[in-house]
């Protein structure tokens, strides 16, 4: 069968989803007090910075922001060839923070496990919530997102890709079927 590409969300759709997530985050946490957004490199970090922008627009106040690279915490390091290690950039103490961990696509949940371990090594936050642009299912760990842009049941052989423009803003979500 020939490869097939389906557009799941266009730019407007992505923007609406992000705006809704931003509102949900603010509603659940009652504003930006002690709130910290942490994006998982690289896709999650781009989404996180878009959410940060929206939160500033809605609330008029900035929110703590960081990015995290989870390569050092992966559980498959010894079976993959060497992966480049990115940088973690969290410049505020995590103690008493309500952290919203952000990634673009949620799949097996292993990346989120790695990110949570990485965060716990840096400090002890009050809680960790999870925001995801697309949840494609197939979890291998007991992990459930708190904020979901789009729920998308997929087959294992399908691929989900989030396209970013030159300014690292999410433009569209595509599904590839091989």
């Amino acid at each position, binding site marked *: 069968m020939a490869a097939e590409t389906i557009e799941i969300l266009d730019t407007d759709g992505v923007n609406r989803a992000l705006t809704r997530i931003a509102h949900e985050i603010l509603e659940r946490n009652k504003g930006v007090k002690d709130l910290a957004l942490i994006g998982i490199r690289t896709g999650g970090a781009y989404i996180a910075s878009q959410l940060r922008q929206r939160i500033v627009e809605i609330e008029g106040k900035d929110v703590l922001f960081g990015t995290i690279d989870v390569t*050092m915490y992966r559980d498959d390091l010894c079976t993959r*060839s060497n992966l*480049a*290690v990115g940088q*973690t950039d969290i410049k505020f103490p995590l103690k008493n923070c309500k952290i919203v961990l952000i990634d673009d696509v949620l799949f097996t949940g292993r990346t989120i496990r790695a990110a949570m371990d990485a965060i716990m090594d840096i400090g002890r936050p009050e809680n960790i919530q999870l925001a995801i642009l697309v949840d494609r299912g197939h979890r291998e760990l007991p992990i459930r997102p708190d904020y979901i842009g789009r729920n998308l049941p997929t087959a294992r052989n399908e691929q989900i890709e989030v396209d970013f423009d030159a300014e690292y803003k999410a433009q569209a979500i595509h599904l590839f079927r091989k």
Partner: protein
Amino acid sequence: MSFNPEHILGIKNLTAEEISFILDTAESFKEINTRQIKKVPTLRGKTIINLFFEASTRTRTSFEIAGKRLSADTVNISASSSSVVKGETLEDTAQNIEAMHPDIIVMRHSASGACDYLAERLNCSIINAGDGTHEHPSQALLDAFTIRQHKGDIKGLTVTIAGDIAHSRVVRSNIYCLNKLGATVRITGPKTMLPPGLERLGCEVHSNLKEAITDADCIMMLRIQRERQGKTLIPSLREYARFFGLNDHNLQLAKKDAIVMHPGPINRGVEISSAVADGKQNVILDQVENGVAVRMALLYLVAGGEKLQQDC
């Protein structure tokens, strides 16, 4: 790119891209050393043996801390407390250590080529922590990392290295490394300490310190290696200090923002005056700090990857 070396034996066989990749990787590991909990689980379950046949404080501690911060188990063996004193050969010692299945052996030895010798005979990875007067790759990499930190880019810089060139493994690794990264390397020292053929390595050779440091961006001072007969090659340490010691006065010949480096241990008042060693331009302790991050990167790159797929 993906860079997955089996051993790190020297800088000579690395490409500029590979060196830059190591430095970029070290950049990521540097952040861990400033955390409250300085540990990541990256090399959990790996065993690293530090086999040091020569005295060392910085390198051994640095490799040990690097391994521990990556959650590897590190074991230190120094010659004085090992069976070497009972007459065991290097190969026998190494084979016995290998029988305990370490993943990496970090070795320092007084014989040039000792690490290459073991790399050919053992199955585990070898990282050279200094072999005789041959190479000291992790030092050259941390030097490059420190220069990059202070100067941004190494390309186009002029780096002067002064001191006991003949006996220095640091200088050989640094010449390879800095040349590959596009710097101009100037070498200077007493004639008796300048081996013939240095120009073939691609550096400028000067017999006068003042001339060598004029307009330099970076000055790297080396110590007189007393344990390697360095002392018999000069009339006296005082005379050496007069002609080849870096002090406030001759440092002014270099660029205003030049940095002063030293691989340590420093001999105050000999190759470097106390005023310079503690002065504003010195980055000596930055070198030591960066050493841990660079060594974490080396351990990560050597230990990870497909090679281990067979073992896991």
